[in-house]
């Protein structure tokens, strides 16, 4: 099928985020959710009453009826929550909102996520997410599982560890021009990175994301409406989600080379998979991407995600490509995580990265990539379900 009703049908017209050090949120998740939704609506220039759809990502107690009820919206038409923790469905939540708009199910959909240590504990998850066949062997955290997958990518896949290091250093370099980043004023160099304590090998401290309290909201409307609201909407060119069947859910028995991938690769039947579906729906390829925000709970999965998307070569060549110079704005070949990302800015379960992806289309990032027309957001590498979304400037339509 060549006709793609999704391409350019919806656009992000309002964004807002707030973050605090973990455990220091001044308000509940519900109040923060309401605050960022109001801020995002103000950013878009629309009344919050016009919101008729809600998509929350990865849990939270405040569904669309609750939030819509509090805001006394005119009518609720769409209320969804995306399955898949670990950041996996974070981009898919945006696709879900755009799908509602493109198919006429709703007109104005907000995508949101709030996290507060006081409300739902660490990351809002139960103490142990994993079953006894992980726990019995000392594996109780995504960090350790991602570390094992990353170890195979390094040792068997031949990707040099410097690829991970460059991604981390580029993130910290970007944070130095972002006054609201938690890593602002705390530059990181190779030596400090290498000497930082080990967490779950091959991850050192700086390979692991921060955890923050806070909230994020993005408001989407139809392309037609978007044009009347502002001059710089971020159009959704394409979004894709999924993973090869069984990926990461079979106690580390996913097939062959899928194990060390980030999950965006070909399906079990050889069909394209998430990354290829994204490119084909967008009518663009990896060479057309101007700037990337890649979810990095840990540095290794982020490198794997770039490889899966064809943005970085696999194997040894990943080390040559993944240099701090190539990964930093404004002149790098593939500037990434330009706010500082989850590592050096903040971590609201990764949805904060989507806001930065939109800022790049608007030209309002603290590390703008000159003339960026396409802006990619990759969600949750190495999670059971993964997703990505490609935003484009009006000129790309």
């Amino acid at each position, binding site marked *: 099928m060549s006709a793609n009703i999704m391409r350019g049908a919806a656009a992000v017209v309002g964004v807002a985020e707030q973050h605090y050090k973990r455990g220091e949120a001044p308000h509940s998740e519900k109040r923060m959710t309401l605050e960022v939704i109001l801020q995002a609506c103000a950013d878009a220039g629309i009344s919050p009453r016009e919101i008729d759809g809600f998509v929350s990502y990865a849990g939270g107690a405040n569904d669309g009826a609750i939030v819509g009820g509090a805001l006394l919206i005119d009518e609720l038409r769409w209320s969804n929550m995306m399955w898949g923790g670990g950041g996996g469905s974070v981009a898919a939540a945006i696709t879900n909102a755009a799908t509602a708009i493109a198919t006429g199910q709703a007109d104005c959909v907000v995508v949101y996520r709030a996290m507060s240590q006081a409300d739902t504990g660490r990351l809002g998850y139960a103490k142990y997410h994993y079953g006894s066949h992980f726990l019995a*062997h*000392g594996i109780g955290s995504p960090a350790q599982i991602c570390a*094992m997958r990353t170890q*195979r990518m390094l040792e068997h896949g031949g990707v040099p560890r410097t690829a991970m290091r460059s991604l981390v250093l580029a993130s910290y370099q970007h944070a130095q021009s972002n006054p609201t980043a938690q890593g602002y004023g705390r530059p990181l160099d190779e030596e400090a990175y290498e000497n930082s304590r080990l967490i*779950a090998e091959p991850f050192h401290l700086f390979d692991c994301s921060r955890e923050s309290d806070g909230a994020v909201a993005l408001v989407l409307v139809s392309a037609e409406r978007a044009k009347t609201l502002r001059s710089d909407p971020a159009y959704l060119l394409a979004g894709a989600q999924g993973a090869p069947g069984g990926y990461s859910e079979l106690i580390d028995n996913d097939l062959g080379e899928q*194990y060390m991938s980030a999950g965006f690769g070909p399906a079990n039947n050889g069909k394209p998979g998430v990354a290829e579906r994204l490119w084909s729906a967008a009518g663009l390829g990896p060479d057309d991407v101007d700037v990337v925000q890649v979810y990095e709970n840990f540095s290794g999965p982020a490198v794997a995600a770039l490889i899966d998307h064809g943005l970085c070569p696999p194997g040894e060549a990943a080390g040559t490509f993944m240099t701090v110079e190539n990964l930093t704005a404004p002149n790098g070949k593939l500037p990434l995580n330009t706010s500082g990302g989850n590592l050096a800015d903040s971590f609201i379960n990764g949805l904060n990265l989507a806001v930065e992806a939109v800022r790049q289309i608007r030209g309002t990032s603290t590390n703008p990539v000159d003339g960026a027309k396409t802006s990619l957001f990759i969600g949750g590498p190495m999670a059971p379900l993964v997703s990505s979304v490609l935003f484009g400037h009006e000129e790309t339509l």
Partner: protein
Amino acid sequence: MTATEPVVEPWGPTPDGLDGPYWDGLRVDELRLQRCNECSTWIWGPQAICGHCHSFDLGWETVEPSGTVYSWNRSWYPYMDEYADRLPYVTVLVELPQADGRRVLGILADDVETNPEIGDRVVGVFEHSEGAPWPLLRWRRAATAEGEKG
């Protein structure tokens, strides 16, 4: 050699009992994995259905506990209270050629300082700790285990 202290929580069979034969096998020093009675496909982790032929008729077979390191990780951060006092420890993902390459996890029970390498041969040892409700399968480098035998 690092001691492998007894662990009590929260492992053991899942509430649905699906993996009961695995844990029962450990009591008699056997590694048991699921296998489809219809198409003979090895299955891991425990499932209610064979993903290949969609039969629900699944059995269990005993597998020799030896294999090769598929990947590994050394944990330094106390992610789990139960293992906090024995950091660091190495967890290996072991590929079992005799079960069509199914992989099982386990802690490397010795020599925590030396990095394992992917492809290293390892053998399983059944650890019965006093007071622990269930035995655990640990792994040792094949060379170490053979040395101890000799």
